[in-house]
């Protein structure tokens, strides 16, 4: 997956929506993962957990700090990439592919309108660096 095909939350999650199944795949942006460095742990939700926009569904921990991972949308977790916990390197090597975190079956369209294009997200990241 190329980042240009994705939508981004201000909190650094990416989202890819499959319109046919109304299922979103969610991961963390390369920018966020680069900023974290030295990952030690990721915790993801179980299948069946209900999420809503802005709600924390997991956490990612580095040597230096821990960060929440937020759901960009409203729905139910249908898949959780559990094996990532033992393959944290996939997050950095392929953040928009093998590094996916969860799949969410959308309950409604809440949150979708807030998401940024890759170009706008990059602008936000450039500002954060200053």
């Amino acid at each position, binding site marked *: 997956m190329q980042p240009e095909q994705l939508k981004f939350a201000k909190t650094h999650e990416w989202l890819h929506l499959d319109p046919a199944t109304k299922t979103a795949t969610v991961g963390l942006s390369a920018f966020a993962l680069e900023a974290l*460095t*030295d990952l*030690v*742990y990721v915790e993801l939700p179980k299948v069946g957990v209900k999420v809503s926009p802005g709600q924390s569904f997991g956490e990612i921990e580095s*040597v*230096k*700090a821990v960060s929440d991972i937020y759901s960009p949308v409203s729905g139910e977790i249908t898949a959780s990439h559990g094996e990532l*916990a033992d393959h944290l390197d996939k997050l950095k090597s392929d953040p928009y592919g093998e590094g996916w975190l969860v799949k969410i079956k959308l309950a409604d369209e809440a949150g979708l309108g807030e998401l940024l294009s890759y170009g706008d997200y990059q602008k936000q990241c450039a500002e954060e660096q200053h």
Partner: protein
Amino acid sequence: MTEAASTAPLAQTPLHAWHAAHGGRLVDFAGWSMPVQYGSIAAEHTAVRTAAGLFDVSHMGRFRFNHLDEDGSLIAAFLDSVLTRRVTDMKAGQVRYSLVCNEDGGILDDVLVYCAPYDGGGRRFSLVVNASNREKIFHWLQPRLDDFPGVLMEDLTTVFAMIAFQGPKSRALLQPIVDLQLGPMKYYTSAFAQFALPHNRIDGVVSRTGYTGEDGWEIIVPNRDVQAIWEYLLAAGSSEGVIACGLGARDTLRLEAAMPLYGHELNEQINPIEAGLKFAVNLDGREFVGRSALAAAAANDNQPQRVGLTLDGKRVPREGYGVVSGARNCGAVTSGTFSPTLNCPIAMAYVEPEFAAVGTELAVDIRGKAEPCRVVPLPFYKKSS
């Protein structure tokens, strides 16, 4: 926000431009713009454990004491009156870890006392203090000089630079450019040294000290000379794995070595006995600020203790997280990280004395979930000698 944001520009060390040009991720540390890391904290950490790493520690506060017509005994007497550890018997070349306490025995700072030789058998003293406490300690010491006429204190922090070169390969890499034999230097000693680089000779001080748990050196030279030494050591050591390291690795290294950090394990509400620093308190036959409070603390068996914790899981205990025994709160974490050497989460914490014994099974409340841990001996890491 808990504190008013300072609008003052951050101070910069003489190596600041080097850090910025070499990918240093610069953060505000005690009012200084300092590199927290250049790349991976774990890689910088491992470089120090296996080869050597180079740290800019020019933000550390440095005060030099002088007296125009005296051999140094009055300076020693002054420092002896404000430090928890004896200074009067220090010999030229010795470095000593000590504490500055208030009248209540609370820790104002932890410091290194450097005793240097001076004219025909005399001594001169310097203090290295934490960057975060530099102004506080300077202003705390200043009025106390009144009772020691002629003793002068200068803050030389921004005049001289300081770097730390730490790791098992540091001695062999430093030796070719210094005019003294490093091998016989004991841990916690210092000496005047001349550093001979291809194009210049630099006068400075080298000490066998550090904050990493490895063999290593700290070097103090004039600001204008520091980059030449820094670049020489990096170039000389690059094939051996020597890299520049930031404050992130400095923190994980000192934590593995169980060295306390002011503002975390140490503060004005904690006394040196609780902190496990009794070795740095000399009560016998001397008077100093905080002595009576510390004598009482030394006789008190019922106070919190600094302990080391290791955890079974991967989640990392962070400062402020509660330590529990069953349903009972028994302490709090002061520093925690994922130990690159031990490959598990580690923490230092203060716990009530009945939970401080090595082997005690406890848990850390990590964001609402009790993660099992146990009390282990400190340090977490000890270099093989």
